[in-house]
């Protein structure tokens, strides 16, 4: 008697479910270097440095959208922050080489990495990657102000507020509050040349690749920074000059946490190894303690002085 269709389907399901589970768990453990899944509704920015005119409208718009006081500490007049800081989530910088070769503006804001190092290091998940939109958000109620994020971020984005009793961590959160209202992020809503645009990450990626195709030789290495760099980011960059000059280091395809914390993660997996070590230690110390106590009490009888354990 041949196997019925029903038997075949249930058989596959019965064998397949544990196998799928084993593969899912096994690959998680063994292949830490696998591509990181992109969040289902990943949004992002595409910044084309070749179109940017450096007007800094996005800097002002960013402060306005996030209800931050303008940073006029430079000359007490203009909102011209020299770098990201506790009042600045978004900044335009200029790369101008001494030898007069091609210059470029560089927009700096959070890259919203697919595997963010800041969130990997954050002790109580104050920095957290939204599983749907993929935006890396900061929650004031969970942050202890340890400033580890300022050390771990390979792009050096999160900034700590150094003055005041209630310091905050300032970083681009892709204007989550505006997205909820159906608006675009502040910086993209004012850009006059469309150098920075907002959209779903796959769409932006296609757009960027189309631009490279349409303008061969215009872009550095004919590639999009953030497609695979650091495991992939949700802010994508196109540039004429090397990405390193814009403050985007070459980090390789593997994300920083996956590359550096591999052994740490394996050692603490399910807390199995430490627990095993603990059990062994207890056994050894029990035996030592017994011998030590016996010796101490013998000594107590010899000297007439109370044992010091």
């Amino acid at each position: 008697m041949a196997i019925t269709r029903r038997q075949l389907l249930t058989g596959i399901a019965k064998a397949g479910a544990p196998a799928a589970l084993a593969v899912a768990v096994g690959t998680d453990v063994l292949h830490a270097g696998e591509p990181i899944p992109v969040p289902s509704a990943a949004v992002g920015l595409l910044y084309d440095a070749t179109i940017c005119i450096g007007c800094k409208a996005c800097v002002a718009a960013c402060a306005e959208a996030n209800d931050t006081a303008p940073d006029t500490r430079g000359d007490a007049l203009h909102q011209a922050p020299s770098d990201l800081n506790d009042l600045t989530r978004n900044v335009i910088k200029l790369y101008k080489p001494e030898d007069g070769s091609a210059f470029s503006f560089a927009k700096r804001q959070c890259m919203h990495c697919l595997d963010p190092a800041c969130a990997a290091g954050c002790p109580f998940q104050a920095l957290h990657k939204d599983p749907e939109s993929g935006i890396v958000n900061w929650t004031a109620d969970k942050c202890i102000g340890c400033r580890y994020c300022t050390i771990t971020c390979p792009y050096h984005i999160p900034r700590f507020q150094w003055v005041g009793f209630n310091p905050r961590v300032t970083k681009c959160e892709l204007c989550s509050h505006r997205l909820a209202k159906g608006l675009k992020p502040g910086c993209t809503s004012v850009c006059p040349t469309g150098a920075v645009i907002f959209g779903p990450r796959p769409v932006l990626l296609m757009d960027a690749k189309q631009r490279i195709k349409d303008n061969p030789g215009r872009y550095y290495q004919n590639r999009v920074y953030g497609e695979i760099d650091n495991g992939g980011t949700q802010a994508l960059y196109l540039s004429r000059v090397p990405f390193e000059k814009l403050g985007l280091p070459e980090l390789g395809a593997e994300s920083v946490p996956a590359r550096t914390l591999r052994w740490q993660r394996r050692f603490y997996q399910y807390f199995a190894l430490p627990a095993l070590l603990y059990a062994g230690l207890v056994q050894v110390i029990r035996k030592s303690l017994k011998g030590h106590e016996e010796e101490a009490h013998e000594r107590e009888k010899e000297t007439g002085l109370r044992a010091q354990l």
Partner: protein
Amino acid sequence: MSTTPATVDRTSIDRTSLDQNSSRWERNVPVYGFPVVNGFFLGLSALILVAFVLSGYRELAGLGPVSGMNDAYGWGIWKTFNLMVLTALGSGAFAVGIAAWVFRRKRLHSLMRMALLTSFLAYACGLLLLGIDAGRPWNFYWIVFPWRWNMHSPLAEVAICMSIYAMIPLAVENIPPVLERLWYFDSRLRPGVEKIEKRLHYFFPWIIAAAYLLPGMHQSSLGALMLLAGERVHPLWQTPWLPVLYLGAATFMSFGCVAGTTMLCCLVWKRGMDMEVLDEAARITSWLIFGWLGLRLLDIVFRGALGTAFHFDRFAGVFWLEVVLILGGGWLLRRSLRYHDPRQMFVGYVISSAGGMIYRFSPTTLAFKPNPEALYFPATAEVLVSLGFISLGIVGFLIAVKRFAILPAPLQEWHNMANYFRFRRPYIRWTGYFKYGHFGENETESESESASAD
């Protein structure tokens, strides 16, 4: 060093008799005959006061006005020195404890109380300063909700593991000297004290085992902290072996701290040195040093970073300073073993620990270059707070060794102490503290006296 015998003829040590000349460490004896409050103590107290006032100001004004920390160097000396370096020196309870309890180096038990005390003080002061260094310390309450922890974060591991370690296993391990003092203080307390001791001893294996697992975890995770910083740490220091090297540095540094502090105390308070115990500690330390240096150099060679050690820059300078200090310290320790010379041994401990301190300080500060222009130098207020919290530990140590039986001493010292107090402080006799100093004889005597009086 002139007051201590340069060499000890081992054959003359009678192991069981109460030989007056024996310098064999038999018992932990409080430091007596020296006042707690003196000029040094008052100076340290003034530093503590200054640090507390500045910490109060920091809570109101923020970190910027009191420290040199900036956007590039988010971590200053409060974290990188007081916590990451000084808890390595204070890992004695871990390193000496493992040698004594796990590898059963029995003679090292005489150093255990010193190790436990120095560890507790180093961790307590480091964690207090961590609370001041944290920008939003009120959110530390998340520590009691394990499901809120980021289990894969090295910093969460450090913060959680360190607090648990200092508050539970380390604190509990330091209870016996306190109970002992209560036991001698008043005979009416004895049944209660003995009951608590019995219960404590029942839980000791679990507590002691935790006291080795937890520091093993967080001392290595301190190294793992800088792994995430990637290439911004100089290649001579940035390695996947950073956790192992951090843990290894903590072991030989803490041996140096415990044995070196004990030697210094013996010198200052005129105690005999047991060269047998000190030799054993020095032997273990020297092997730890050579093993650690070997691992460090092998790692550098196999990663191909050796070339950067010969560049003419500050990183190479720091690297060679570190290697020379640690290697020189290890060599002096080996040499002291041959001649039983406490002077060379002490210098060896100081030098190797100093080298270890530089190593532990480098990845976060000296060899950390977030960008070419970044600079960090601690502000005066920052240094004062740092010094104040170190002083807090030293003051705690001075009080503890003069009030509790911490420092190891020859057996005769205990009897000398009892005699000292009998004649110099007769008014405290009625408390029964030293009346019962000689376990057995005096007590039965006094009991029979009181019985006959009835």
